[in-house]
């Protein structure tokens, strides 16, 4: 929870450098490599998913239904845009709202139970959602899903310019802006009374109650926030891939998003970000097929839990003081 103090000038310099890299240098470098651009967009989705699942894990609960929330967002937006012909820019926040509403509804009973029981309850919910997507053929298109989802409507400012989202590059910018927005929200929530309250629940729930923290409220808050952001990612993913199908929103994917937080390390804010980047790029560099991805995730989890129980970032944070010859942990 501690933050290192940087001078304001250094901070601004870092922000500007990061902005130039993300908005100018990376797009310039991958302009002619659509495959690499695609990986970058997926990575940004994964970063937001990793952050949101980690926000719930800070309260000591492990949810196994994140993919279901993505699905709720994706199908809601798809139906609003394709059946009712609403604008993407209306359906996008509405789908997030829908995810949040379902999150509240599911969180209310399930967050009263703990540990493996909570994980099982959310697992059951996730699978029920997936089966509903398959079984309700008229509405959700059944096992074949829905194809031909249009790209987000162009934003046009009269007499100035129009931004379309048909090209991969324009979608990169959309995903980037969304990711930065999410990072800002989660960072500011984490380092505030809300984040502190959430984290306190995991360590000593009775103590938290007795200092006046409404622990149920904060568990609901974290779970709902996770649901909203997962649904928003689901919407972007659907309109980017132009396709939704029930197989994307099953248990395996929920576990994959959980893996980002576990392997990156949940204690530090950057943990899930590092985890998401690492686990999105790793299978691509190893050039394996999708079915092997699950195996890689499994092996990665086992190795992490055995050798780096605090994740990559926790491991490095523990290692650094030793390398510098400093006191290990006062």
């Amino acid at each position: 929870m501690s933050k290192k103090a940087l001078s304001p000038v250094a901070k601004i310099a870092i922000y500007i450098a990061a902005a130039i890299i993300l908005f100018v240098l990376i797009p310039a470098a991958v302009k002619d490599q659509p495959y690499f651009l695609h990986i970058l967009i997926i990575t940004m989705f994964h970063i937001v998913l990793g952050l949101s699942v980690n926000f719930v894990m800070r309260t000591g609960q492990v949810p196994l239904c994140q993919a279901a929330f993505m699905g709720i967002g994706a199908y809601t937006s798809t139906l609003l845009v394709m059946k009712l012909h609403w604008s993407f820019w209306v359906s996008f926040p509405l789908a997030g709202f829908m995810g949040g509403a379902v999150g509240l509804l599911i969180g209310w009973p399930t967050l009263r139970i703990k540990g493996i029981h909570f994980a099982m309850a959310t697992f059951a919910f996730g699978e029920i959602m997936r089966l509903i997507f398959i079984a309700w053929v008229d509405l959700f298109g059944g096992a074949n899903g829905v194809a031909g989802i249009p790209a987000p409507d162009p934003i046009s400012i009269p007499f100035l310019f129009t931004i379309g989202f048909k090209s991969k590059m324009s979608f990169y910018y959309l995903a980037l802006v969304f990711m930065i927005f999410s990072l800002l929200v989660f960072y500011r929530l984490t380092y505030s009374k809300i984040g502190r309250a959430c984290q306190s629940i995991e360590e000593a729930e009775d103590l938290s109650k007795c200092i006046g923290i409404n622990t149920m409220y904060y568990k609901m808050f974290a779970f709902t926030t996770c649901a909203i952001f997962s649904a928003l990612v689901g919407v972007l993913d659907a309109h980017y891939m132009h396709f939704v199908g029930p197989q994307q929103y099953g248990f395996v994917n929920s576990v994959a998003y959980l893996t980002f937080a576990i392997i990156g390390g949940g204690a530090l804010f950057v943990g899930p970000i590092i985890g998401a980047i690492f686990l999105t790029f790793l299978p691509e560099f190893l050039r394996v097929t999708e079915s092997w991805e699950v195996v890689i995730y499994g092996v990665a989890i086992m190795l992490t839990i055995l050798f780096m129980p605090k994740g990559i970032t926790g491991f490095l944070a523990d290692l650094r003081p030793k390398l510098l010859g400093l006191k290990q942990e006062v």
Partner: protein
Amino acid sequence: MGLLTLESVTKHFGGLAAVNCLNMALEEGEILGLVGPNGAGKTTLFNLISGIYSPNSGTILFKNKVISGKKPHKIASVGLARTFQISTLYKKCTALENVIIGHHRQIRVGLWDILWRSRSFNKEEREVERSAHDLLTFLNMEDFKNTLAKNLPLGYQHRLAIAIALSNKPIVLLMDEPFAGMVPEETIEMMGIVRRIRESGVSVILIEHDMHAVMGLSDRIVVINYGRKLAEGIPEEIQNNNDVIEAYLGRQDDFV
């Protein structure tokens, strides 16, 4: 009418009456010692007052308002704080962070201020940090502010638990064995801390097995055994009470 009043409070666990028809009252500005053999129901009583359990029957009144049956965070918000046995702390956080978490209810800003990092947000965060420093200074543990709670010496873990409880600005503080596992010098220092807490206007109920500390600190003592009140009075009366001696040491004819 006391500040905190228990009226025939009863709590059963299955067939066992952990607290059985107990009446007691805490007066304002008082240190009330709560003693009794192991398993007498002292900690259960604290759990009942702080709302972790709710009583099967009877009422608990705080400032003449019923608090029994309310949620713990509601009870905390009317001015009741407690510490736990075996120093329940946020072990992975530093001492300072522990006390800052304790200030939760002192922070009034809403979600919008938090997301926007408004001026009032920054102001409150600074105030809370200053107040947390002050509390650590009050407990003579300013030097340990950046130490992780799990690495603190036992005596300082007890102090940190008190600092967390005090950060909620309580009117009544329930302390569960703050002297456990302490060497005599630490006990003397802790007695000074408890007296200073009372001087700052906080009424205290103290569960303790260290008879020296309890007799030295308490204005009044309540002895409970098998969930019932065995005796009540000033320390001298308790020391000479035959029922109490019997409960602790056994009856003389038991040894025959």
